[in-house]
C-alpha cells in the first residue's frame, strides 16, 4: 500500500518537473494565438518594418520599427553605461575591496536590485528628468537618454553579481602565477583574471541586456512616449514594452489594435528567448 502511494508521489514529482516546459509553451501559444491573428489583415513586413505606428489613425498603421528602434536605442544606451560601470564595480568588489567593505557593497548592490522598477521610474521622473532637461536645454527631460540612465542602474546589480561570481571563480593559481612573475595586481586583473572570467562576463552582459529590453514601467515613465522614429537620444522615444502597457487599456478586445499588441509581445518573447538561450550557452561553455 505504501509502495503504491510512493509511486504516485514520484509520478507527481516527475510531472511537476516538466511544468516549466509547459509554461513556456503556454506563453508562446497564447501570444501567438492573438498575435498571429493580426497577420490576417496586416502584412507581416508592414508590421516588422513599417515606420509609422499609429493605431488610432484612419487607416490605422501598425509599423513597429519606431518602437523597435526605440527599444534598441534605450537598450544600447543603458548597455553603454552599465557595462563599464558593472565590470568596474565587479572587479572592485571581487578583487580590491577589503573584506569588511565587500559585504557592505554586496548588500548595497542587492538593495539596488530590490528597488521595484515603478519606484525607479517615479524617482527618475521627478528627479532625473528635470536634471536632464536643464543639462541639455531640452523641451522635456523625458527622453531616451533618461530612460537609458535609469535602466542602466537596474541592469547593473544583475551584471555585477554574475560578473563578481565569474571573477572570484578564476582559480587562485592563475592569479598567483601572474603575481609571482612580478606583475602588479592591476596588471594581473586586466591581463589574466578578466580574460579568464570572460565567458561569465559576457553571459552577465547578455542577461543584463535581456533585463533592460524587457523593462516596462520605468521606461514608460521616463522616455516620453513619442512613437516616432528616434533621431537622437535626447528626444522622447517609445519602446515596445511601453507601447503594450500604455495602449492595452484603450483597446477593444478582438480589434486589430488588440492583436497588434499581442504581436509586439510575441516579438519581445522571441528576442528575450534568443538572448537567454545564447547567454545560457555562454555560461555552460565556461563550466566545461
Amino acid at each position, binding site marked *: 500500500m505504501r509502495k503504491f502511494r510512493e509511486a504516485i508521489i514520484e509520478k507527481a514529482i516527475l510531472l511537476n518537473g516538466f511544468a516549466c516546459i509547459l509554461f513556456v509553451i503556454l506563453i508562446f501559444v497564447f501570444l501567438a494565438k492573438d498575435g498571429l491573428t493580426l497577420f490576417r489583415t496586416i502584412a507581416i513586413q508592414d508590421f516588422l518594418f513599417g515606420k509609422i505606428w499609429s493605431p488610432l489613425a484612419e487607416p490605422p498603421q501598425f509599423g513597429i520599427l519606431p518602437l523597435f528602434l526605440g527599444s534598441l536605442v534605450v537598450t544600447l544606451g543603458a548597455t553603454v553605461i552599465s557595462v563599464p560601470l558593472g565590470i568596474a564595480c565587479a572587479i572592485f568588489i571581487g578583487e580590491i575591496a577589503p573584506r569588511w567593505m565587500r559585504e557592505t557593497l554586496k548588500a548595497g548592490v542587492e538593495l539596488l536590485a530590490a528597488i521595484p522598477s515603478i519606484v525607479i521610474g517615479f524617482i527618475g521622473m521627478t528627479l532625473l528628468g528635470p536634471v536632464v532637461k536643464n543639462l541639455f536645454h531640452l523641451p522635456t527631460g523625458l527622453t531616451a537618454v533618461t530612460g537609458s540612465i535609469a535602466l542602466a542602474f537596474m541592469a547593473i546589480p544583475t551584471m555585477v553579481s554574475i560578473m563578481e561570481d565569474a571573477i572570484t571563480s578564476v582559480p587562485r593559481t592563475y592569479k598567483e602565477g601572474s603575481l609571482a612573475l612580478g606583475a602588479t595586481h592591476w596588471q594581473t586583473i586586466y591581463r589574466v583574471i578578466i580574460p579568464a572570467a570572460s565567458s561569465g562576463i559576457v553571459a552577465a552582459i547578455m542577461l543584463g541586456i*535581456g533585463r533592460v529590453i524587457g523593462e516596462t514601467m520605468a521606461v514608460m515613465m521616463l522616455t516620453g512616449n513619442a512613437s516616432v522614429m528616434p533621431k537622437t537620444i535626447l528626444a522622447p522615444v517609445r519602446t515596445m514594452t511601453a507601447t*503594450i502597457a500604455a495602449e492595452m487599456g484603450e483597446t477593444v478586445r478582438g480589434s486589430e489594435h488588440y492583436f497588434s499588441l499581442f504581436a509586439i509581445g510575441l516579438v519581445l518573447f522571441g528576442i528575450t528567448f534568443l538572448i537567454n538561450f545564447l547567454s545560457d550557452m555562454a555560461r555552460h561553455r565556461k563550466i566545461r
Partner: protein
Amino acid sequence: MKLKPQIKQKIAFALLGLAAVTVIVPVILILAILVQRGWPAISWQFLKEMPRMGMRAGGIFPAIIGTLCLVAGAISVALPLGILTAVYLVEYAKKNWWTRMIEIAIVNLAGVPSVVYGLFGLGLFVIFFHFGSSILAGSLTLAIMELPVIITSSKEALMSVPRSFREASLALGVSKWETIRCVVLPNALPGILTGSILGVSRTAGETAPILFTVAAFYLPRLPQSIFDQCMALPYHLYVLSTQVPNVRPALQYGTALVLVGMVFFLNLVAIIVRSHIRSRKQW
C-alpha cells in the same frame, strides 16, 4: 608619457572605487529622498484608511491589502510547484536532453519581460479560463513569474544537503521518497525559505503583470473574493504619479516609501535568515 605600473595601478584602483561608489550612491540617494519627502505623509491613518477624493487624500489601505492578497496567492501556488520541480531536478532527473530542456525553460521563464507576462495572464487566465480581471488571475500570473526564483534557490538548498546523509538513510532500507521527505527537505528548508522571501519581495513590487489581470485604480470597497479585482501598491503609485492631476507630492512619495519599505523589509528578513542558517549549520 610612460607611467610606472604602480602609478597606473593606483589610478586604476581609484577609478574602480569611483565606479563602485557611483553604483551605491543612488541607492542611498533614493532612500533618502523617499524618506525625506514621503515621511510626512506616513501616519497610521495613511496606512489604515480608505482613500478619499479620487485618491488625493486619505489612506492607501486597500492598496496594501491588495498587494498582500496577490503576494499570498502567488506564493501559495509557486512554492509547492517550485519545491517539487527542484526536488525533481536534484533528486530524480538524469543528465539527459529532457533535463537540459527543463533548465532552458526555467532560464527563459526568468527572462520573459513582465509586460509579456501581463499579456499571457490576460490571454490565459482572464479570457480563456474566464476568471476575469481578478485576484485569481493576477496571483496565478505572478506565481508563474515567481517560479524560476523559487526553483533556483530551492535547488541550491537541496544540493547543499550532504550526499552522505542520503546514503546513510538509504543504507537503512528507507525508500528514496522517505529519505527526501525526512532528511533532505527538512534540512533544505531554511534555504528554501530564503528563496521564497526573495521571490515574494519581487512579486510585491511588480506592476506590469497586474495591469491587465487584476489591478483597478479606485475600488469603493475591499475585495470580497478571489474573483474580485483589487488595488495594489505599485499600480497605485503609477496612477498617482502619472494619471491623477494635482496630487500632493507627499502622497506619491509616501506610497513609494511604503512599497519600498515593504520590499526592503522582506529582503532584510531574507538576508538575516540566510546568515542565521550559515552560522547554525551543523555540518
